């Protein structure tokens, strides 16, 4: 009985500890950032190295970078996951090799990705310091997470569906399209969210690829400053930029939260819709 009580207390304590860290972070940002946050902050250009003014160009640059990263990584990641789960035996040498490389890739520090992106996209492919270089570098970073979660999602789709579909003379691609991918949809969405989260929160890899320039980007070949880079710059290099840094961090957190809820909602909606239509 006492043991039971102790275990329960421990679990509650741990849960409380974790939530309090999160709450502390959030409240700190709210308290210090709210003062600077306003509509003008969202639609104005930064002034005086970010100490005043807004973050409009930075939000635009971040959105473009994340969009490029996801557009490049999602189809590639999904295709790889389908190849690994549906068309490769799990224990085959090829499958094992690919999965092992992904694990290694996932644990590579982001600064290495930054250097790689700089060497490959900026210099070798001649894209220079640009949103495109940054987006593609982030795509490389997000790929392992995307593929991992998609593979897990597809593997957890019941094997019964595969057998039953085959027994009805359906092709593997039909079973994949109509049964397995929908069944894996929540996992795919979660993977996408993790990918966007990682891309949106990335700093080190972007400093070397998409650069520091805080002007409004005119095309994806322009250099642009992502939100996380902006926060880093304000906090580290700009004396008196703390309030702005807090506000920018708050915006970043709120954006990620919004994207997260949106993706969850869309997945639910899509799954419900699928029951009726093709």
């Amino acid at each position: 009985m006492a043991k039971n009580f102790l275990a329960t207390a421990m679990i509650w304590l741990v849960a409380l500890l974790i939530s309090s860290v999160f709450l502390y972070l959030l409240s700190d940002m709210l308290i210090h950032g709210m003062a600077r946050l306003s509509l003008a902050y969202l639609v104005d250009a930064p002034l005086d190295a970010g100490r005043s003014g807004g973050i409009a160009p930075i939000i635009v640059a971040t959105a473009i970078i994340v969009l490029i990263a996801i557009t490049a990584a999602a189809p590639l990641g999904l295709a790889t996951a389908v190849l690994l789960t549906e068309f490769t035996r799990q224990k085959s040498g090829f499958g094992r090799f690919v999965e092992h490389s992904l694990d290694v890739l996932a644990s590579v520090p982001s600064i290495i990705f930054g250097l790689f992106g700089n060497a490959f996209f900026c210099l070798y492919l001649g894209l220079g310091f640009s949103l495109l270089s940054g987006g593609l570098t982030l795509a490389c970073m997000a790929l392992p997470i995307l593929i991992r979660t998609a593979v897990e999602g597809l593997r957890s789709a019941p094997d019964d569906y595969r057998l039953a579909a085959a027994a009805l003379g359906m092709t593997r691609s039909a079973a994949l399209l109509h049964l397995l991918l929908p069944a894996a949809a929540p996992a795919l969405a979660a993977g996408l969210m993790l990918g966007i989260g990682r891309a949106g929160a990335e700093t080190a890899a972007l400093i070397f690829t998409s650069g520091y320039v805080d002007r409004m980007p005119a095309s994806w070949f322009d250099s642009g400053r992502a939100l996380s880079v902006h926060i880093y710059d304000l906090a580290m290099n700009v004396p008196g930029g703390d309030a702005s840094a807090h506000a920018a961090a708050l915006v970043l957190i709120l954006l990620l939260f919004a994207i997260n809820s949106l993706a969850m909602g869309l997945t639910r909606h899509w799954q419900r819709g699928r029951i009726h239509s093709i």
Partner: protein
Amino acid sequence: MKALMQDSDNNSLPQPSYTLGPLQSGPPCCDPRPLIRVTDLSLHYGAKAELENVSLDIYQGCITALIGPSGCGKTSFLSALNRLTDMLPGCRISGRIRFNDTDVRNPHLDVRLLRRDIGMIFQKPVPFPLSVRRNIELPLREHGMRRQAEIDAVVKQVLQDVGLWEEVKERLDSPAQALSGGQQQRLCIARALALKPKVLLMDEPCSALDPIASGVVEDLIVRLQERYTIVIVTHNLAQARRIANYAGFFWVRERAGRLIEFGRCQQIFQSPAHSLTASYVNGDRG
């Protein structure tokens, strides 16, 4: 007791308004023309022999029951008939399987057409996570049926055939996985029937169901016999005895499943030639 009489947990409806034909115990008549001929079938998973030298004929329009203890290869035998064994990694087959005049093991054979002709029902009902209607519609579309009116007609007809129409006609567009277990299994049978198969392979279709739902499905199987050739794997000896025309008894010997005896159902149950069969059907072994 009254509540029990209604089909499993479907509580919104009173007595189902369909009627099923009378149960015939072990009907002796059916066309003794072999539709599927299996010769010397052996099946290995990796190094492990699952089945060894099985030869038997499946007769047209008959119910053939495969009985025997778990792990003696009955399910593998069924899967070999419609090449579902292709899906199992490390599965090797030798021997001959002829269906009508086609060689089932021919590597150039279009398995989609084969599986359309030889449908399969699994132990656990596998309704897709779609609506009742879409469950039947999806395979039909995959096999090239495009006109919605035609599809709707087939959906209605097969649901009537399995006695499910009255129960689900109001909720064709609600999720199939919300149906009760017995209804799900009948939906799976309807889904297989929609493709107009010649043979239905049933892998313990009743064992995951409660007794009432199991009885409904069993009656359905007997009725299906009029138009389909049925091979059923069952652990329920009484059921095999009630519905089957032919019975095959499998047993594990020398670490591989073997067909010990095959014959008319009455003969297997009343005067088995082999002592193993006798002790199994009498409940002394297995």
